[in-house]
């Protein structure tokens, strides 16, 4: 397949791509390394735009559709630029029953973006997830790697204000 010079996406620079190439080279001969490579690439670039995905696909010799499939399958991969802080509100059964949806609604109102998107100032990425594995403390939300249990809408809004 002919290589095409794609226009680079936001936040993706040549040095970062070089770094990605390094990773690809490192794992090229290891079977089943796609997820690992993607993970590392995301660490480098922050997210996985088409140019990065295609680079990985061509580099590892798998089809672009396969890479795309893997990226879209796992929620930990992102194809969009992400905010500095990632807020996750649990919509699992227990949390939902306990008012997770209200928490999400309040946050959505506060951030002025719907769930699943990033604020324009790139401060927060707000997501809804299905079960964070802490049902006992429902409703649960996380910000980056911090977990907050038994939140209510006001509390949630308070919490996120702490993250600049």
């Amino acid at each position, binding site marked *: 397949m*002919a290589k*095409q010079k794609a226009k680079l996406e936001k936040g993706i620079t040549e040095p970062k791509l070089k770094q990605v190439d390094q990773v690809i080279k490192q794992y090229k001969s290891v079977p089943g390394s796609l997820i690992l490579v993607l993970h590392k690439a995301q660490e480098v670039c922050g997210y996985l735009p*088409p140019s990065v*995905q*295609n680079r990985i*696909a061509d580099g590892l010799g798998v*089809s*672009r*559709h*396969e*890479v*795309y*499939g893997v990226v*879209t*399958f*796992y*929620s930990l991969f992102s194809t969009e630029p992400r905010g500095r802080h990632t807020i996750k509100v649990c919509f699992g059964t227990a949390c939902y029953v306990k008012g997770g949806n209200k928490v999400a609604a309040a946050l959505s109102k506060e951030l002025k973006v719907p769930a699943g998107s990033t604020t324009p100032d790139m401060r927060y990425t707000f997501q809804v997830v299905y079960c964070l594995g802490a049902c006992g403390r429902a409703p649960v939300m996380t910000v980056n790697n911090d977990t907050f249990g038994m939140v209510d809408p006001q509390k949630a809004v308070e919490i996120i204000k702490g993250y600049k």
Partner: protein
Amino acid sequence: MKLTIESKKVEIEPGATILQAAEKAGVYVPTLCHDKRLKAYGSCRMCLVEVAGSRKLLTACSTPAADGMVVSVNTERLNEIRRRLLELLLVHHPLDCPVCDASGACRLQDMTFEYGVTSGDFSDKRKDIPVVTNSPMIERNMGRCIFCGKCVRVCDEVKGVRAIGYSGRGFEGSVGTAFGVPMDCEFCGNCVASCPVGALTSKPFKNKARPFFLSEETSVCSYCGTGCRLKLDYSDPEQHSFLQGKLWRTRPDDQDELTAGSFCGRGAFGYEYVHSADRLRSPYVKRGRKQEQSDWPRALDAAADGLREVASRYGSAAVAGIISSQATNEESYLLSKLMRVGLGSGMICAPAGLGELAWREAAFEILAGLPTAAAGEITAADLLLTVESDLSESHPVLGIRVLQAARYGGARLIYASARETKLSHYAASDLRIKPGSGAVLMAYLGRCLLEKVKRRGGLKGLLGLGEFTSSVRKLTAGKTARATGISVGELTDLADQLDAAKKPLLLISHLAHETQKGSDYARAAANLAYLLARLKGCDPPVVFASEFSNSRGVLDMGGDRSLYPGGNLEEVEKIWDVKVPGATGLAAAELLEKIEAGQIKALYIAGLDPATQLLGGARWGKALRKLDFLVVQDIFATEASRAAAVVLPGVSWAEKEGSYTNFSGRVGTFKPVVKPLGLARTEWQVMMGLMERFGVAANYPDLAALRCEIEKLLPGYFSGKTRNNKPGGTLMPFVTKGLVEKPGGKYRFLMLSGNSLFQLGSYSGHSAALSERMPRPVVEMSGRDAVRLKLANDDLVEVVSRRGKLRGKLKVVEGNISGVVYVPAYVPGAAAAALLPAPDSKGRAVGCAVAVRKVR
């Protein structure tokens, strides 16, 4: 191994799955995601079975059967599970049956009905996913998808294209391309054909006909020489209140052992020409300078009178016939008889398109002499050598076989060509050789093998040994390496591999795929095949893929030089009960020269357009105008028909009865499914009409009678017995003849031309979907050349030869050898034939020097 399935005892080979065992036992196991071409996947769980002693339920498709197993398939517990599974599948399914193309032939519908699924305990929003229409020919309606994965797996495992993949997860999951770009693949239609529901639909068929109204007829594909069996879905006016019959779509036949249920883009989308608006609908007769619409009696009278007049004025040798390789066996036979008996002329030509040079040689040396290998031998082989041929492009279904063998069958694929193609990626050794050097390569390999055969004393009875030996004596490894452009090491390695392989197979195609192959190419291949046969103690292992659907049958029927039907003149004279003229057939080049020299004054063209389909097309265009009298029988108006004095409209293969003989001699018969368009008549009836006017007995009430007569000359022809007239075993001296035209100066590229996936012969251009896919040629060029010419992908370029020019879109292929441009042959309005020189009588490969420039 013995096991019991549903209280039926069955014995199977070890390694078989429970499903295969059940199939053998005649027990039906429901499946949604299973396909015998694919590896077991086990996603749909419909095939769950109970095995005595196992607490778990096992999927029949992926569980290997074990000795003494007791399997039950139809217990209430299993059926309840299946019902639940289906219920879950239906929860989100859009209420699309009324507008879904699959409705009526949908596996999901069948299963739901079969298991009596009623609305269950689940309810949720129905999927409302927009249809993805951005790809050509194929539309994806992901709401209907049930995630059996067959399309993705077929695309990968069968075709090796991997054009689609899964994406997303859960409810958002879908099948598609990365980032939703349009599909850019071979458009073989296998994904559509394998889809058990209506998630993937073919655009030409979509929303047009309902499967439960369609009747099915088994037929043969009318395009290439593979001779795939196809199922034609057509509307039968007698079955429902259809105003007229119509061919709606084609489907692969999964009972055909040749195709195993696959087909290619031409087979899947190429049927549309049957209903093309450009078809000829009535006979035309030239009056003065204008062609006027006419009726059959008048047109046939005019044709017969014209031919007779020329014959009586200039002698019967001034009348010639030329027949297309897409004509049926029966038509070819009738033409042969018409020309030889009716007109007393042996001037018959059955040109083989652009690959004629190699083909004529092959016709004599290989097909007439060898029992040719059938498709099954590709799968059985452990070494596949393809020289300057890419079957996956020219004969896509054979290509599937090659890929399967290379990827899963444990065969080593050696691909030697000037081009980088799909096979390059799957080849164990991918050798980039100079264009036209395949003959040298094979000759060298022959030389290497010769010694080995000699050492094992297997040369006894092989004729022509001496000449061959002396002709290759000087062909050293170094010389070969220089000629082909690959290293000596690679050469020796190749020879060793051939020697070591248990079942090697030579895969070559006669058409001008990689270059305009000369007669030396076919001879070298034949020699190599003979030697391999001696070495391995088997029949000559060679697959010689013919270009058109009936390239081989036309020759069998006596369309060419000295090949009377059956090849035996005395026999022919006995059956026909006349003295058959001694003059025997012509090559296309000879015919062209004779027309130009004024020796041939009248020509009967049956179904072919020389200007776009024969080498030296530009010259042909002029030559046809020199004729005193020209009769053209075709289904479309062509350059030839516009020059004709009488135009006889023929019919497409869907409208007539007939048979095609494929590359390995398998005869595929087909029946009409559509009524002839307008006044058009089947060719064999037209020919009978002409024969009648020449006083030739044509007492064939139907084709069965005609086939009976043919079988007298070719016993067992239609029942599939391959004939073998010449006992094989004559080696031919190897000579390199070189090219007619070498690149240089202003024209510094060598143009190669061949069949593309989408354009073949004159029919594909009238099939809307195929033409849409390839409206203009895709000109391939190596990366180095592209950089030098400052050209990039998708640039519009002009390819100019001394005889003509064409415009195409550039595609840069990094791996191609530089100095070469590749142009697909039969793109309508940009015929490569117009650029190519005519061959000379020495059988040299024509070669074609061209210049490439960017169009602004």
